[in-house]
């Protein structure tokens, strides 16, 4: 049990900083932020637990409670994708995770998801060792869904009093 746990912990903590940097780097901060996991007590992780710290670019506080809504969302997604890389499931389903994100962060997160889902990465294990996954993402923001390959439009059919859907393949109608 201890051995399995430590194997998971070491894998995830070795990759979390790289994923957080991918989600936070930008033109003005090419290096991105810093993120790491700490065991409160090396010998008995089950009793004391794991502390997660994420510091956005230009910020120097270690206390996660001080982060803003959008900063916490990005930190949470980095943790989620790092955990996934240890136990890759074939798909991810995300329901309005972009609600607290500004347009810049929406573009970064959507770009990251697209890089993990499309263009054949699903087949190949890319060099960092984290595999790709299929993504189904619910979003209200057009700056998110215009990066998708296909769109499922859900509408309420008020005559019938129920939900209906339409599917569009975006790859066919994208301008070259």
């Amino acid at each position, binding site marked *: 049990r201890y051995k399995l746990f430590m194997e*998971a912990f070491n894998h995830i903590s070795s990759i979390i900083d790289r994923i957080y940097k991918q989600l936070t780097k930008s033109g003005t901060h090419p290096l991105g932020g810093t993120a790491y996991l700490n065991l409160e007590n090396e010998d008995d992780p089950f009793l004391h637990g794991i502390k997660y710290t994420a510091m956005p670019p230009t910020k120097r506080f270690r206390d996660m409670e001080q982060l803003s809504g959008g900063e916490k969302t990005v930190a949470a997604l980095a*943790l989620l994708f790092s955990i996934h890389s240890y*136990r890759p499931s074939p798909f991810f*389903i995300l329901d309005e995770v972009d609600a607290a994100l500004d347009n810049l962060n929406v573009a970064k997160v959507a770009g990251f998801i697209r890089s993990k889902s499309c263009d054949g990465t699903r087949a190949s294990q890319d060099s960092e060792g984290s595999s790709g996954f299929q993504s189904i993402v619910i979003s209200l923001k057009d700056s998110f869904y215009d990066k998708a390959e*296909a769109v499922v439009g859900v509408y309420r059919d008020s005559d019938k009093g129920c939900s209906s859907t339409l599917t569009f393949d975006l790859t066919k109608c994208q301008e070259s």
Partner: protein
Amino acid sequence: GKILRLELNNFKSYKGLQTIGPFSDFTAVIGPNGAGKSNLMDAISFVLGVRTGQLRGTQLRDLIYAFDDREKEQSGRRAFVRLVYQLAGGSELRFTRTILPSGGSEYQIDSRNVNWDEYNGKLRSLGILVKARNFLVFQGDVESIASKNPKELTGLLEQIS
């Protein structure tokens, strides 16, 4: 592998038999408030065996389509969700979960009735760990993942190791 399409029959706000998809490698689900987007995620979660409390229902019957409160009380209604999954090699696998008029649920792989252990075992063999749920983020939950306390984080890691 990946999810190819879904077939819903009287599940939540989806009346009658509806096929949803095909899903690509990166699919966005859009629509106005109250249209039924989160219900679609609930359908995927339901067919994978996620418990009803997580799907905004108190009992399985709450997940069956009803036009109004009166219809909800009627007995004998059924519903099912089928997930058509494409394996790495290209062949298809169908997972179906049905809500019975009695209020219980039934599991099928392709058209064979199976018990929950076999159903879940098959999902695990594909890398779908329903118990850990590290691949599902429900509406409003994302920020709380970053605010988990140290013991909760250990618990999360334990489930996937």
